[in-house]
């Protein structure tokens, strides 16, 4: 009995230290998620102004651009999966990878060759373990993405897409005809949902601010030219979309981690309570046994002395 009591006490101590760790992670995630939300909010004006500018160009000019035109044939697709660097975030990684799997399945059923681009170590590990080819991986920023990384990723994806446009010559690097983006959208502290959307070719939503019926359409001056403006504008638009996805994913990851760690802490508390009860029971049983042994011993002694007299 005494042995198992010691065992229970050791188990309680181990659960207690686990609880301390999960509690700390929960608090860290909680403070970071607020920061991540603020960053996402701070980046919103840039995205909003860019969208406004893009739709202004789309509405007031009729210039076509390589990034907005549908390719004639789409037999090669690229997919960027935004995953986390670290685990312990509940179902965050698995649900985003599942969403990516679904998209891959759909693209495959359309007979497309797929190039996979990944951000985050979890996604990298997933693909490496299954020995699937990955074109490029970026890691090390999933909870605090910077614009520089989005710039780099955007640059790579646009290059892959444009390579397809410039095909015909001796192009060794096959270009992709569409680019998809899979990331986790942050809806609230409790709800984060994985989404897949098509990044390229761009679908420009016209008329961000639809003109009034009797209002004369403002004639935009483009400097140097509409084509040039679009040329500069669209890559930035793409990068800003990617940056936005990163920020959303970061907030989602931290929220998911906080939730997972909170339930881990709760579970640890539950376990400690349970083990404490069992340990107390064991201790009481031990005491009871000792008393009955002593009483038994005293009685036996008393009987023995009584017999002598």
């Amino acid at each position, binding site marked *: 009995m005494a042995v198992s009591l010691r065992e229970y006490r050791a188990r309680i101590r181990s659960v207690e230290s686990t609880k301390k760790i999960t509690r700390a992670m929960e608090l860290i995630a909680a403070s970071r998620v607020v920061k991540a939300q603020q960053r996402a909010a701070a980046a919103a004006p840039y995205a909003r*102004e860019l969208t406004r*500018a893009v739709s202004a160009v789309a509405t007031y000019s009729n210039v076509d651009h390589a990034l907005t035109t549908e390719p004639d044939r789409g037999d090669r697709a690229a997919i960027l999966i935004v995953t986390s660097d670290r685990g312990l975030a509940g179902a965050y990684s698995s649900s985003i990878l599942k969403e990516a799997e679904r998209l891959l399945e759909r693209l495959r059923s359309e007979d497309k060759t797929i190039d996979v681009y990944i951000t985050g170590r979890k996604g990298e590990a997933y693909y490496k373990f299954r020995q699937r080819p990955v074109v490029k991986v970026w890691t090390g920023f999933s909870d605090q993405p910077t614009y520089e990384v989005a710039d780099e990723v955007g640059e790579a994806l646009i290059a892959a897409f444009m390579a397809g446009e410039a095909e015909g010559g001796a192009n060794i690097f096959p270009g992709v005809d569409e680019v998809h983006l899979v990331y986790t959208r942050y809806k609230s502290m409790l709800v984060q949902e994985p989404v897949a959307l098509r990044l390229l070719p761009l679908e420009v939503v016209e008329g961000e601010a639809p003109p009034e019926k009797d209002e004369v359409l403002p004639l935009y*001056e483009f400097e140097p030219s509409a084509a040039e*403006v679009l040329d*500069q504008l669209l890559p930035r638009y793409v990068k*800003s979309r990617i940056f936005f996805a990163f920020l959303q994913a970061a907030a989602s990851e931290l929220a998911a981690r906080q939730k997972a760690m909170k339930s881990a802490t709760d579970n640890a508390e539950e376990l400690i309570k349970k083990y404490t009860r069992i340990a107390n029971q064991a201790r009481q049983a031990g005491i009871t046994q000792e008393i009955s042994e002593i009483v038994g011993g005293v009685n036996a002694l008393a009987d023995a002395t009584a017999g002598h007299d």
Partner: protein
Amino acid sequence: MADSLRVELVAADRLVWSGEAQRVIARTTEGDVGILPNHAPMLAVTVDGVVDVLTTDGETWVAAVDAGFLSVAHNRVSILSERAEMSHEIDLEKARKDLERAKASGANEDEASEAVRQAEARIRAAERAS
């Protein structure tokens, strides 16, 4: 002045400045443009340089911006840039060092000359303000 411009200077990761202004000067690929209230709608590509804004209170502030956009419509001016710094945020020492480093790394390379332009813009902005 009855009319004023509603100005927003936006970097990729934050809103740097927003407010009312009488006049905005920015550098586009075609040269400097000055924008006064009731300017015709315009979309222009800007280069690394300095943005100069005269607010309705009669104050002037300058900011260094990287290449980006300027859009004007209905007295709303927005300046978009991947990176933008107000003059008081600029570390002049650091900008000077960046400039030297960029120059040393070979001004012929595209990237290096871009870095040179960016550093120069920051120094100009900081010096103008002081």
